[in-house]
């Protein structure tokens, strides 16, 4: 578990998304944020009904996941969110910290760019903003950077076995998403809701 950004190994979002989904054995819900977070989730297994693919509403992956977590306290829920997206909705970290959902984990994919709009740098990258430190200062005590794949595995393991809310920060490379989702919101909602109706 790493507290600062000094010594972080740059990892790959597609590979880590696959790694995460591969560890999910109890119908955990995964909410993919807009753009590449979504597309790599889609590429990791588009038939997985517990995945929800957000098609707009940039910044709302964590609030949507939080809502699922409230409705189903026995199901663990993951939000996959980019640094630029989270920057749009930092207030939600305080909202979540105030309610302390035990079953929620937010994974921040931090590449420092708005990749999908042409890879422009984020203000937070220019400023050296530490997204995990923001989460911790917002009241989310279990927030850490994953320095490498082994730490990522350990933090996901902690998220799957201990009470949250948890935040896992990951510095990622600039490889674009591996695939693109269909654009079929009603099917996505139906599939996800059906999966959520299955007991954990």
């Amino acid at each position: 578990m790493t507290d600062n950004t000094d010594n972080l190994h740059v990892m790959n979002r597609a590979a880590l998304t696959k790694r995460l989904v591969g560890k999910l054995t109890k119908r955990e819900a995964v909410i993919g944020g807009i753009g590449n977070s979504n597309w790599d989730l889609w590429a990791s297994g588009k038939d997985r009904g517990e995945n929800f693919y957000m098609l707009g509403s940039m910044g709302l992956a964590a609030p949507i996941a939080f809502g699922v977590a409230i409705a189903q306290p026995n199901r663990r829920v993951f939000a996959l969110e980019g640094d630029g997206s989270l920057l749009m909705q930092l207030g939600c970290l305080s909202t979540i910290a105030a309610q302390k959902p035990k079953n929620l984990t937010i994974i921040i994919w931090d590449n420092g760019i708005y990749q999908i709009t042409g890879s422009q740098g984020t203000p937070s990258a220019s400023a050296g903003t530490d997204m995990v430190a923001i989460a911790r200062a917002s009241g989310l005590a279990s927030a850490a950077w994953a320095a490498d794949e082994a730490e990522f595995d350990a933090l996901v393991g902690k998220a799957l076995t201990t009470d949250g809310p948890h935040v896992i920060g990951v510095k990622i490379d600039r490889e674009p998403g591996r695939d693109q989702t269909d654009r079929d919101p009603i099917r996505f909602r139906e599939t996800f809701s059906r999966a959520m109706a299955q007991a954990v």
Partner: protein
Amino acid sequence: MTSATDAPPTTWHAILRQALKDNDVRLVTYVPDNVLRPLIDGIHADPFFTAFPCAREEEAVGIVTGASMAGMRGIVMMQTSGFATLPNVLASLPVAFQVPVLMVVSERGTMGEFNPGQAIVCRTMRPILDSMGIEHHTMTRLDEAAFMADRTIRQAFATRWPACLIISPLLSGARK
């Protein structure tokens, strides 16, 4: 649920709270507002509800959307100016995905508004709702309140579409 011995509610906020209970709307997310205070206070005092404030209206819509897809009905409460921050997320989330997110907006910016900014923002609210086909009703009369609230909420869930109840100063008394 109301038991046979309970008198029917007689204030707009008690009527609205009862309509939420009758339709199993348990999750209430809100951005604080003075006019809505008796409604929000009553909801917090009632263990039927899970209620909490959000930092911003957009996240409240996200939370209710997620909960609804996972089987728990919810509502977002806010002021007119807060509603005006919502068009993008309404269009791309509950409307596009057809998730029945309920909204209650206390109407500011009309009937004696002193703040020009609020008055202008208020004029954007109904066109935004209309442009997305979101059913909205303005509650002005106590004798219509129970029917309007219950039927609007019921239709939202039956048709899987967001809906909005606007609390007029005519009903709430609003700010002096």
